[in-house]
């Protein structure tokens, strides 16, 4: 019997009020404490929404992040934070890591602390029933990190992929595990978008799966901006974890559904984070039912990619629909009707 769950993947649009606080903090008009209050308030608001919608796998909305790399890269030795670069084919830009030395995580990285705080807030919002939800910290994967870096140090980018994995992500993920993260979400759009060479992708998958295995954590490797049919040979390396695929970028999922029968947990990115069009529940149910027939252990219904690309109201509408569709599918045991 396949378990069906709902999830929020990656970021939720930073609310207007919080964005205003951030800009006031940046220009020195409010204190760090005032900004902290804002983060707390808006994170709690998001948790309230997600728990009301009974979405099982959640994030804290990544309100403290500017993009999937920042501020992480400002806590990495060997990296300078460089100018703005386009994030794949989006009208969205990130500050790129400029690699000028051997990369390694600095000890003052606040990301584990933020996770701990978010966990406490979730506990507050759910009045102690936070175990019903899985709060996932979100990190960029080593391949995506390396291929979006301006590499001026490593002769071979594959060494950079390795160092990002074992010198940056490993210590960070260890800390997150110690603080109670039961699932860690790792974003690898690079795997699906396809600029990296076959060799680079293979190394990226190898080192990341080694790391996940060594740490004995449940990982969620999420791919997006590319057709899920074309990346199966890479994803197989993560077969025993949660694998996220972007079905909004997949032309013909009928063609590839069968290939996914060997997976344990599949996260189906069915809600398009780059479009304001609301998905039709019927087609979503139909698609999910096909995957349920594969008898994988768990099917998770989620957004395809970070939600920064759509306005907050649309993100809320999509999550509401996602929640309703999931509940209906739970009742029908994964059948489309």
């Amino acid at each position, binding site marked *: 019997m396949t378990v069906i769950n709902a999830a929020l993947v990656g970021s939720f649009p930073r609310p207007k009020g919080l964005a205003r606080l951030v800009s006031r903090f940046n220009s020195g008009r409010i204190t760090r404490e005032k900004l902290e209050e804002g983060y707390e308030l808006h994170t709690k608001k998001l948790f309230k929404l997600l728990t009301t919608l009974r979405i099982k796998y959640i994030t804290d909305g990544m309100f403290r992040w*500017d993009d999937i790399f920042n501020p992480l890269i400002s806590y990495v030795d060997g990296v300078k934070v460089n100018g703005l670069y386009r994030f794949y084919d989006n009208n969205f830009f990130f500050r790129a890591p400029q690699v000028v030395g051997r990369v390694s995580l600095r000890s003052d990285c606040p990301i584990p602390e933020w996770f701990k705080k978010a966990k406490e807030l979730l506990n507050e919002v759910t009045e102690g029933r936070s175990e019903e939800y899985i709060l996932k910290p979100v990190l960029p994967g080593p391949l995506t990190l390396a291929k979006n870096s301006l590499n001026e140090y490593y002769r071979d980018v594959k060494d950079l992929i390795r160092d990002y994995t074992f010198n940056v992500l490993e210590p960070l993920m260890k800390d997150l595990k110690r603080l109670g993260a039961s699932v860690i979400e790792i974003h690898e759009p690079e795997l699906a978008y396809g600029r990296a060479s076959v060799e680079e992708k293979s190394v990226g998958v190898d080192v990341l799966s080694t790391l996940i295995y060594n740490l004995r954590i449940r990982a969620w490797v999420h791919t997006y901006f590319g057709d899920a049919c074309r990346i199966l040979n890479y994803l197989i390396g993560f077969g025993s974890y949660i694998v996220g695929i972007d079905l909004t970028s997949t032309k013909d999922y009928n063609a590839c559904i069968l290939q996914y029968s060997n997976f344990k947990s599949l996260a189906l990115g069915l809600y398009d984070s780059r479009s304001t069009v609301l998905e039709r529940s019927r087609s979503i149910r139909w698609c999910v039912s096909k995957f349920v027939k594969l008898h994988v252990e768990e099917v998770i219904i989620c957004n395809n990619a970070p939600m920064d690309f759509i*306005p907050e109201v649309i993100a809320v509408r999509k999550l509401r629909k996602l929640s309703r569709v999931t509940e209906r599918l739970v009742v029908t045991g994964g059948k489309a009707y």
Partner: protein
Amino acid sequence: MNLPILPTTVIGSYPRPKWLREVIKGFRTGRYDAEVLKEAMDDAVIAVVRDQEEVGVDIPSDGEIRRDEMVEYFAERIGGFKFYGPVRVWGNNYFRKPAVIAKLQYLKPIVVDEYLFLRKHSSRPVVKVTITGPYTLTDWSFNEYYESREELAFDLARMINTELKKLEEVGCLYVQVDEPALTTHPNEMEWAVQAINKAVEGINMKIGLHVCYNNYNILKPYFDVLRVSQFALEFANRGFRDLEVVKGLTKELGFGVVDVHSRRVEEPEEVVRALNKLFSYVEPEYVYVNPDCGLKLLPRGIAKAKLEVMVRGVEIVRKELSKKGLTEIPLRTKV
């Protein structure tokens, strides 16, 4: 009509004076009414045209003072768009990304009044009006209505064509179509270029095309296909590398000589060096000189100083060119 050789111009936007920003804030909170806002906008345009003319810019713009943002402004004035709220572009920077929710409709002239006001208040024979191009309007909007992005882009091209005709009717000589999104999706280039051509179809004014912070190697194969007489490209930001890309260009180049993302004010000699380097790729008679992009994000004083450096640099080069008898070029509408 003739212009001095190496005509100097701007890309379009210019910093809003601080006092105008106060008035806009006051308008949003209800302290000032629309009439006060309009008066302030008019005064600000006069002030920034004056800034440009004072330092010697040959072809000024109105600084796009009345526009908050280059896509928003048009989406607010074309029927069929809706705004759901801000969307992040980077860091903590947001823009109100519009959504197309119905068949688009041309309601009334969008920038004709802007042009007429600028024409009245500039002492220069030629002024520049900017229009956001059909592809960028498409790429920076959500599409909820059209079957395809291509179909949306062509409908936008028709609206822009109508607007260009209206500008031509009132005597406008020079329009720059802005397409900063042009090479974002290389697989859409074919129809993106056709949409731009559709937008300028039957237009006899001078049309430039501004494309910035793009991969120009993707654009290059379309230099001849695009029915514009000028490409305004950014090069200071690239340290004047990649100039080979304009080798063999059979049209004019609007050459970006000052970096709009840096507050460092360049030296006139840097402009001179850049131009001399460029001349081994493009003939001086086919070069206009401009900043890389709009100046809007700089403090006003720095924006003005950068324009002044640009003009001083050009003056030095003009002296050299005049020795070879090169002093003027025609305002070309077709190349």
